[in-house]
């Protein structure tokens, strides 16, 4: 058995870990303080009164947060359905089928990443306005999906490329059609990777600000929009509480990504 406590080499590592924790948690401590501060102003370095009054306000039926939370979750859910629904066949095609114009398709997926989002959103907002999609949940979902789809296709392509071809070939040689092989063999095998990409798209949508701001505001409010308005209006308590709510699904995602996104899948992204 190794003796851990007596090994002096642990000291610098413990110090390093402590420093890392401080750097990461320093700014977050401020957020936590604001979330429970009822009165806090200059020149007091710490809040004068602590309490949960603002939490009650945020979660009261008349508070904006409940509506924004519901909007955010509905939008993120629909975004996942559209993005993954389109990305699964596209990712499979990119990974397995001999595609006409494969290079052009990959370029189409890459260029929007390099192009500033702003003009895209501005022009989409203009086009949506003509179709009455501005300020609607559907409009926001479409914008989020256009963004999420690109990531979803990348991850789906990587997930399908990482699969062993032998099982599919076995199914085909036993007489299963290409479509049936895809549905019954390939899809279940790729499920973990696809699930990870679904979670990723969900969180991207939950956290998305710019597109929602241009296409949805002020009619559709999501948590990031609420956060921004509260912060800009000096309602630091509301902003901090909203930020904390947004952290919860993200932390859940950390645990998921640890399990599903293995290095062998990651290494194939973008190939």
């Amino acid at each position: 058995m190794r003796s851990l406590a007596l090994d002096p080499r642990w000291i610098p590592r413990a110090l390093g870990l402590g420093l890392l924790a401080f750097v990461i948690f320093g700014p977050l401590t401020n957020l936590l303080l604001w979330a429970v501060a009822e009165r806090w102003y200059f020149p007091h370095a710490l809040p004068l009164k602590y309490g949960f009054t603002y939490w009650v306000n945020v979660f009261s039926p008349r508070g904006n947060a409940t509506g924004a939370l519901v909007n955010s979750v509905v939008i993120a859910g629909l975004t996942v359905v559209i993005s993954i629904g389109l990305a699964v066949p596209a990712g499979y095609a990119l990974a397995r089928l001999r595609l006409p114009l494969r290079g052009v398709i990959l370029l189409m997926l890459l260029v929007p990443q390099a192009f500033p989002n702003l003009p895209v959103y501005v022009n989409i907002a203009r086009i949506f306005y003509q179709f009455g999609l501005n300020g609607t949940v559907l409009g926001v979902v479409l914008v989020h999906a256009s963004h999420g789809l690109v990531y979803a296709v990348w991850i789906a392509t990587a997930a399908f490329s990482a699969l062993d071809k032998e099982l599919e070939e076995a199914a085909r040689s036993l007489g299963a059609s290409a479509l049936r092989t895809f549905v019954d063999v390939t899809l279940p095998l790729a499920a973990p990777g696809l699930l990870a990409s679904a979670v990723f798209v969900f969180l991207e949508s939950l956290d998305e600000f710019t597109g929602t701001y241009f296409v949805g505001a002020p009619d559709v409010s999501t948590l990031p929009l609420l956060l921004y308005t509260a912060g800009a209006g000096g309602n630091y308590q509301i902003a901090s509480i909203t930020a904390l709510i947004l952290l919860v699904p993200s932390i859940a995602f950390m645990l998921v990504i640890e399990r599903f996104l293995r290095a062998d899948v990651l290494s194939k992204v973008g190939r």
Partner: protein
Amino acid sequence: MREPSFVERHLRVLFPLPAILFIALLMIFPILYTLALSFTSWNLTSGAPLRFVGLRNFEQVLTEPRFLDAVLRTFGFTIFAVLIEAVLGTAIALILNRAFIGKGLAKLLLLLPLVATPVAVGIVFNLFYDPTIGLANYVLSTFGLPQGLWVSDATSVIPSLIIVDVWQWTPMITLIVLAGLAGLSEEPFEAARVDGATQWQVLRHVTIPMVMPTILTAVILRLIDALKTFDIIFAMTGGGPGYASETLNIMGFKYSFEYFRMGQASVILIALFFFVLLCSLGIMKLRSSAEN
């Protein structure tokens, strides 16, 4: 065996088609529209119809001092932020690559900034930087150090924003480099050890060169996003004080939504796209030479 159905015969067209149409409609078309707008004079406030003006928008924007300042600011912000992130991120990855107690916890801690909403991060740091009751100045004064104005001062606003970017995105470099380190073969390390290389020599001459392509991939991804940074700057300073944190993306936003000069805004954003493309190509070239 039965005859393949229509769907089966055209699988390789039907499978990717919906995704392609979606992206063409919602991303490629607006991009092309922006390109077209840059050659027109279109002012939302005047209500006048679109007018083709050739290269006049380019002439006006590209010679404006405010534009040149924004270009330099965008590059200053990006280069410093990404450089610090690359060095720090790689260093942390190398530390985390060894087995030690608390490694899982350290990795989880590290993921926290990465998964936080950028707007939330902006708010967090605005509270943190608050000159009077923010924790940053509190900690500085506790140690007897001079207090700062952070994002409220024209000279410190960009460094303060760089700190925010580094805080949020260093973990991304770490994660990618960790994946790269996990994929390295053991042989060169053993050979180096057999030859009696010190730990430092192994790091300098074996590990770093082998993981360099991965580092550069991470840098490309970061560079593209850093050049396009919008959320954090918009939420924290809106480009101020004055124009002190106005990057190209923020300037493009102001030209679109505050001055409603769509043609000129398009020129600004095309310029930004051009810089993103240029930087990505440059690093991709570096990467292919690092691989050989």
